[in-house]
């Protein structure tokens, strides 16, 4: 019996099927090369060139752009950006986890999924303006507070770091909820009962069993929130103030006002590097996670919905 099994696993038979994988991947490959790799290379090249007089670049090698990064303003904005992105990521995950969990255990999954996706039907900028209408000095929230007599004069909610963080969390929350929902949905909830049975408290079961098993989803959610927030531009521009200036705004400024293209490119490179570093870190974390697949988990609980 054993030799048979070995044979059937190794022998493929004479008529080997041709691998058309590369052909299928071709169009996507071309697309990515033209619209992603090439522009990236252009930015890399620009960042190592000298600034043109009226914008653009002078085609000669220069480290001027990188050298000018070594100033306190850039450092402060970078730290600021990192801070806002990290806080946003943590908040988004903390909100998304219970949401995803609830959605996965609910028996109206489709409805809840729709509710998460519906905001995408409205333009991103319009949604930011909606926040201005809510948080502004003459906005909805202030009107409510004034009416209730909680405050005497309008509170300044907008144009600071808190406003930026709130709107960023709001914007990227669905990107955290969806991957978390889809991993939690595949989680075998009877494992939580097993953990309780073996002595875990309710909370202990979540930390010791649920979280390690949905690690892949958490990592994806972290990346989906952190990467776009780190390069955020529109949100800090519209609801932020001076102290919530982010790297994305810096790039735009250098590109359009100061017209220092190499510097804009160099800053972009920093953004790319930091997000890549984040990506790498997360993949390493994921790599360490043991394979959480159990194909033979049969005869499971039939008492779901």
């Amino acid at each position, binding site marked *: *019996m*054993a030799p048979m099994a070995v044979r059937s696993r190794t022998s493929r038979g004479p008529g080997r099927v041709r691998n058309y994988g590369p052909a299928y991947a071709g169009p996507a490959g071309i697309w990515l090369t033209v619209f992603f790799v090439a522009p990236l290379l252009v930015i890399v090249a620009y960042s190592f060139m000298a600034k043109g007089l009226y914008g653009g670049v002078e085609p000669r090698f220069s480290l001027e752009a990188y050298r000018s990064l070594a100033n306190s303003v850039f450092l402060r904005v970078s730290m600021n950006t990192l801070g806002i992105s990290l806080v946003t990521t943590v908040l988004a995950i903390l909100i998304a986890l219970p949401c995803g969990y609830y959605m996965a255990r609910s028996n109206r999954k489709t409805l809840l999924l729709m509710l998460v996706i519906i905001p995408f039907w409205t333009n991103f900028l319009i949604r930011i303006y909606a926040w201005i209408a809510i948080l502004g000095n003459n906005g909805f929230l202030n009107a409510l507070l004034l009416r209730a007599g909680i405050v005497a004069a309008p509170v300044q909610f907008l144009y600071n770091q808190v406003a930026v963080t709130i709107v960023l969390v709001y914007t990227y929350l669905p990107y955290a909820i969806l991957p978390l929902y889809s991993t939690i949905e595949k989680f*075998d909830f*009877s*494992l939580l*009962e*097993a*953990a*309780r*049975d*073996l*002595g*875990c*408290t*309710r909370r*202990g079961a979540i930390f*010791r*069993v649920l979280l*390690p*098993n949905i*690690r892949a989803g958490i990592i994806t959610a972290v990346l989906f929130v952190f990467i776009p927030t780190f390069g955020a531009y529109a949100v800090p521009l519209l609801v932020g103030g001076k102290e919530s200036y982010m790297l994305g705004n810096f790039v735009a400024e250098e590109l359009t006002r100061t017209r220092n293209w190499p510097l804009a490119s160099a800053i972009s490179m920093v953004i790319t590097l930091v997000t890549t570093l984040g990506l790498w870190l997360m993949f390493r974390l994921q790599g360490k*996670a*043991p*394979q*959480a*697949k*159990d*194909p*033979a*988990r*049969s*005869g*499971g*609980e039939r008492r779901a919905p």
Partner: protein
Amino acid sequence: MLHFSPPFAIIPPVPSRPATIGGKRNELKGSDVSIEGVSKSFGTFTALRDVSMVIRKGEFYSLLGPSGCGKTTLLRIIAGFDDPDGGEVSLDGTSVLNLPPNERHVNTVFQNYALFPHLTVFENVAFPLRLKKTPNATVRSRVGDYLELVQLSSHAEKMPAQLSGGQKQRVAVARALINEPSVLLLDEPLSALDAKLRQHMLIELDAIHDKIGITFIYVTHDQQEALSVSDRIAVMNAGQVLQIGTPHEIYESPATGFVAAFIGETNMFEGTVESVEGTMVAVDVTGLGRILVTEDEPPAPGSKASVVVRPEKIRIDTERPAPAKRTDINFLEGSVDEPIYSGSSTKYYVRHQSGTMLKVIKQHANWSDEGPEIEWKDKVYLSWSADDAYLLGAS
């Protein structure tokens, strides 16, 4: 899996252990479990209806019943995952209904094993100890002991996904036992295994039970499983307990027609009680005529009753057996409608002249068994003693 076959020839002895596991043999360390009037509904559906039973310390107690009869529901209530709508569950006389699952001295072997996929076999078994922040050295020796108990020492570093079904089941047992619960709940722990392995694991479970001496509550819908290892069995159907008794009692004197039919095969004939002489009852069965049954508490003549006789209690011959001096033997004639050969025995469906079908099981004997082989369409004589049949009241 190959190392398990043949299943009975090489049953590895449960290793004799130092006093760490089990302690003195037969010393009963489990708890009494008392269930009183427990009911549970899901919406309008009643899953358990006034279920009561007392499970004694150290007993191997089976809950047996068809799929959907509420066995898992009852187990979940004992474990604390569900609350009953009414009734009481107590361990050693103390109610546990207000305790969460993690505070009950009860552990469960789940039907799907519920091993933690992100932990190795070792860490799965160590899980309860880690929760209690047990020192590492203690964890290592305790987990080592329990892995040895279930014969998985060499698989400690594997992930659950890399184990066979039987191995997973044993990890689940070790993990449930390491906390030294006073009651172990097993929810059809063998249902995912093939027949041979099931036999083997059953014997192992029984040996572990003997060794550890705690109360086992074992859920199954397989009557063979329940009969072979249980001290007592509670037969359930549709959320109710029909009968509680030893395997012998359940098999030999089932309380209802359902129990009789569910536990093994049976012949059941409805009739009317004709006459009663002492314990000897004559029942007039439509088609078959007068059938004799002994009954300790005979019903009144004229009442309806069913005669029940197990297929293996009926003797089948090709010639009419010599008229015995005994007067308590029932004789019937018929022809073989269908013989079903199944290795160690053959089951015959015999059609009586009246058209009534009887099931007869004949054990294949050895050379001393004489007489020609019985074949299809053969005319046969069936006979059984009044002692081997019993009566069930009309219900």
